[in-house]
């Protein structure tokens, strides 16, 4: 039970204002009349809006400003005269948990949400929107959690041995563009099931996919091996030829020997090997023309897999 609470709390701390805010909120213009504003509230069933001039939030006007205006029976006037000028705003990248504290401290019912820097209005946040947004996000997280229940993320803890490693291999068929990329997308799912951290999966999947595409495009086929140990994942891609003429050149971004038909498919821009290197913690590339190529990629997962 406690672990579950920790999960919920962790989840809450990850949410940003932009994750739950309502986008494209209704707005009022400062020169709009109070009567028009009243109609906006009634028709849209809302109780307040930001006042926007030239894309910037210059005020907030709510039902709390409208009621005294109506009861006093005074003459119609522009929204500018009744609004709260220069209101406090929230930022899209602000943590939701901080925003909630701000609601608590100020007692305000709603905040405009603006982009940091440009100050452009991006959305609106009320307590109701927070609750609705959080429930939606939680429902989604819960679904993911259920999937996690039956996945293999505890395998390294459940099994004891001096040395633990999961070994998975795929045959890569050369020049077959129908299948190209399937090993890497399948592997991405496998890694998820094994509870590897999402950012590490992302790097692994990209390195693996680039390597797989290289094998499909330039060779007659090969084998991809994944060795998954508790603290690192190693990817080894071997092919039987034709090998790389100049290893230093393929390490340079933009160098490519790809044929036109490869480029038409969106590959062969000379980004493959540099991109793999960028994703890897360590990379080795061995090749001799006529003999084939072996690529080894190490990514350290540390101790911070999701299962722990």
């Amino acid at each position: 039970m406690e672990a579950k609470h920790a999960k919920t709390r962790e989840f809450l701390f990850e949410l940003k204002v932009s994750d739950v805010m309502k986008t494209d909120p209704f707005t009022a213009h400062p020169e709009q009349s109070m009567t028009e504003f009243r109609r906006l509230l009634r028709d849209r069933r809302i109780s307040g809006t930001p006042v926007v001039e030239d894309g910037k939030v210059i005020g907030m006007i709510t039902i709390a400003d409208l009621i005294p205006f109506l009861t006093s029976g005074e003459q119609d006037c522009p929204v500018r005269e009744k609004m709260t000028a220069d209101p406090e705003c929230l930022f899209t990248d602000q943590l939701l948990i901080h925003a909630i504290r701000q609601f608590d401290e100020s007692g305000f019912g709603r905040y405009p949400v603006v982009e940091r820097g440009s100050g452009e209005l991006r959305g609106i946040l009320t307590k109701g929107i927070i609750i609705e947004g959080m429930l939606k996000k939680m429902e989604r997280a819960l679904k993911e959690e259920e999937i996690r229940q039956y996945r293999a993320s505890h395998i390294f803890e459940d099994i004891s041995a001096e040395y633990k490693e999961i070994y998975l291999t795929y045959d890569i068929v050369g020049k077959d563009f129908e299948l190209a990329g399937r090993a890497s997308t399948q592997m991405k799912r496998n890694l998820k099931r094994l509870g590897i951290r999402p950012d590490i999966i992302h790097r692994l999947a990209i390195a693996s996919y680039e390597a797989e595409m290289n094998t499909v495009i330039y060779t007659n086929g090969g084998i991809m091996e994944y060795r998954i140990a508790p603290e690192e994942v190693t990817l080894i891609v071997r092919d039987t030829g034709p090998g790389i003429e100049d290893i230093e050149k393929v390490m340079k971004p933009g160098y490519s020997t790809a044929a036109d038909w490869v480029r038409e498919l969106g590959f062969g821009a000379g980004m493959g090997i540099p991109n793999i290197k960028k994703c890897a913690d360590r990379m080795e590339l061995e090749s001799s023309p006529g003999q084939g190529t072996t690529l080894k990629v190490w990514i350290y997962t540390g101790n911070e897999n999701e299962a722990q």
Partner: protein
Amino acid sequence: MTLREALAEVSAQILCGEDEELDSPVQTAAAGDLMSDILARLGTPDVLLTGLTTNQMIRTCAVSGIRSVLVVRDKPVDESIVELAREEDIVLAVTKLSLFAASGRLYVRGMRSGTSGD
């Protein structure tokens, strides 16, 4: 703006996609036909606009975690590609607009580049 609203903005026809995905908010987009470029530089935008309709385009998105793809210029999309997108839980839609026009319309509606440095 939700993904559904964004797609309506470019009069796109939705080929596959769950309601849950279509009703979630989108803020960032990127455009490109170079798969390596998408993998190396674009990060994970909410929507990818592209002129490519190969199965590698779907797999590239699956690998980089991109959850929706808008094909421009009304390029024909093979049923097998739609099937692959469905398997990978990727929303796939197609618009008659050009890459430039579709990007522009989404930009006007407040969507921004998902690429850092833009």
